């Protein structure tokens, strides 16, 4: 027996040590990570006509090249330049230059041809822009950028989409009621991620790192939604797959400190010990919460009206409440909390923090009449934080409410079905 305990200690110690070691992850690329990983990452940068100072440029075919700056901490200068060109003098933007070798020059780059380029004149578009095309989308194949690394260049694949559109700016300037501007942007999304099998707490999982804020690094922590990089853990039956970089990560029902390498090539999971904890107190006995912040994206199961969480500031993003209905059906209400003041909560060590979610939900209707005698009614279901609420019955979207329309003397009183829209 003593020998068994000794072996177990050795195994546990080995497992803990493995988790605290850097566990290698391989780089993979496959077009859109949204399709491959189920997460969306995007950053938009403004394209300008002013050439970047001090950057050697290629000979452009078009008469109005555009330039955009991609902020990435993977290069010494903190940014890389991109340029857009037209293969015709005034045609659609269909050529892309990226400083793929991070040498600060675009003159040595081979242009990437758009795989899809659509352009159209906006209806009634002003001629003052000096060119015909002002609504355009051009998608380019993933561009391989080589960041400098200690042991040689490190690849990162970037998807680039160019979009231009007319934006109406509503502003009061004396003598001009409003104005419209041409917005030209590059939408950047990562086309690669890091993936590997990791051992945490003696169990193996598939771990993937994705660059949520598209700045080239994989270890960004943030209190803001969409800015913390993704850590996806597959194979943990206790939690959803998606988590984020932060102070903590939940794996196998335990808390760890995740330490992804900035270049995404490895990750360390260190057991979190002596974590300062506080309590969230709710009006509902049972619920599931998703909260995010610098502590990471955490999933909290509320039982008996309370749940403990590491102390810190969070933003409540979603909640779910289940209830039994007639004939044994399980009903679920889900709230999708809008990022605002009411979605922020702070868990204090050793203290209870009240959190107001749950019933009653409020249904509000609006009549936006379309024509004389014809009404278009819309209904909104909101929670106590003003968040949209969605209802499900046995996992499927619940039947929509009816609307009963009546007049004062009840000579008209009928119920109508509603539809999604």
């Amino acid at each position, binding site marked *: 027996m003593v020998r068994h305990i000794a072996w177990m200690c050795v195994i546990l110690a080995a497992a803990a040590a493995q988790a605290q070691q850097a566990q290698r992850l391989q780089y993979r690329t496959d077009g859109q990570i949204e399709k491959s990983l189920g997460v969306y990452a995007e950053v938009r940068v403004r394209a300008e006509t002013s050439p970047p100072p001090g950057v050697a440029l290629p000979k452009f075919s078009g008469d109005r090249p555009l330039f955009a700056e991609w902020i990435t901490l993977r290069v010494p200068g903190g940014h890389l330049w991109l340029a857009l060109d037209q293969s015709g003098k005034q045609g659609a933007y269909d050529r892309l230059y990226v400083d793929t070798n991070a040498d600060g020059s675009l003159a040595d780059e081979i242009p990437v041809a758009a795989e899809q380029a659509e352009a159209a004149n906006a209806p*009634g578009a002003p001629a003052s822009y000096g060119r015909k095309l002002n609504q355009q989308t051009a998608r380019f194949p993933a561009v391989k950028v080589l960041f400098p690394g200690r042991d040689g260049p490190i690849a990162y694949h970037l998807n680039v989409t160019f979009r231009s559109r007319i934006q109406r700016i509503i502003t009061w300037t004396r003598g001009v009621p409003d104005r419209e501007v041409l917005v030209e942007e590059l939408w950047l999304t990562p086309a690669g991620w890091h993936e590997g099998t990791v051992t945490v707490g003696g169990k193996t999982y598939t771990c993937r790192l994705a660059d949520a804020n598209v700045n080239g690094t994989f270890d960004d922590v943030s209190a803001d939604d969409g800015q913390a990089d993704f850590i996806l853990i597959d194979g943990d039956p206790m939690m959803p797959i998606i988590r984020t970089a932060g102070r903590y990560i939940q794996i196998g029902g335990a808390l760890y400190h995740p330490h992804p390498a900035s270049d995404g090539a490895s990750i360390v999971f260190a057991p979190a010990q002596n974590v300062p904890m506080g309590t969230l107190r709710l009006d509902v006995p049972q619920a599931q919460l998703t909260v995010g912040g610098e502590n990471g994206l955490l999933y909290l199961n509320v039982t008996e009206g309370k749940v403990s969480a590491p102390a810190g500031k969070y933003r409540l993003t979603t909640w779910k409440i289940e*209830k039994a209905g007639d004939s044994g059906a399980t009903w679920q209400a889900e709230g999708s909390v809008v990022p605002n003041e009411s979605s922020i909560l702070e868990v204090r060590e050793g203290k209870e923090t009240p959190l107001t979610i749950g019933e009653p939900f*409020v249904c509000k*209707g609006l009549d936006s009449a379309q024509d004389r005698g014809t009404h278009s009614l*819309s209904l909104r279901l909101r929670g106590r934080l003003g968040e949209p609420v969605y209802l499900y019955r046995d996992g499927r979207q619940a039947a929509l409410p009816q*609307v009963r329309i009546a007049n*004062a003397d009840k*000579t008209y009183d009928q119920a109508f079905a509603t539809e999604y829209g």
Partner: protein
Amino acid sequence: MLLSWREPDDIKGPFTATPVFAGPFKIEVQPFALRVPLVLKPAEPGVPWPQGDGWQPLFDGKTLDGWRVVEESSFAQHGAVRVDGNRLVLETGRNRTGVACLKEVPTTDYEIALEAMRETGAADFCNLVFPVGESHCALTLGGYVNMAGLDQVDGQPFNENEAARNLAYQ
């Protein structure tokens, strides 16, 4: 969640709508009255409008003094703007036709009155942009054929916010 409903010809309103939910969750339903169309009364010839003290005319009824025809952005291909029989006539342009007031106007604590008539078309025929402090608002008439409203109240477009009205234009 949407429902399109037409008032029956033979039954009088006003009508009230009450959502009816099934399921175990407690939902506070707020019945809401369907909007009753307002009828705009045409101005009577010869009657000064608006009445009362303190009104400052922005249009003199004879010339375009104090106004300029907007040429910028989507107004670039505007229609003709002329004064015709005490009326300021804005003809249909390629996209929009507009005039802007060049006079000093208040930005708070004021009322503005406008009499507008749609001679052709079925789209919104009047967008009156007026200052509100450092910002602005716009009165839209005739959008979605018979609607009227104030743009961006509570961040909602003119046809969706609480100020939206269904007007029976004469």
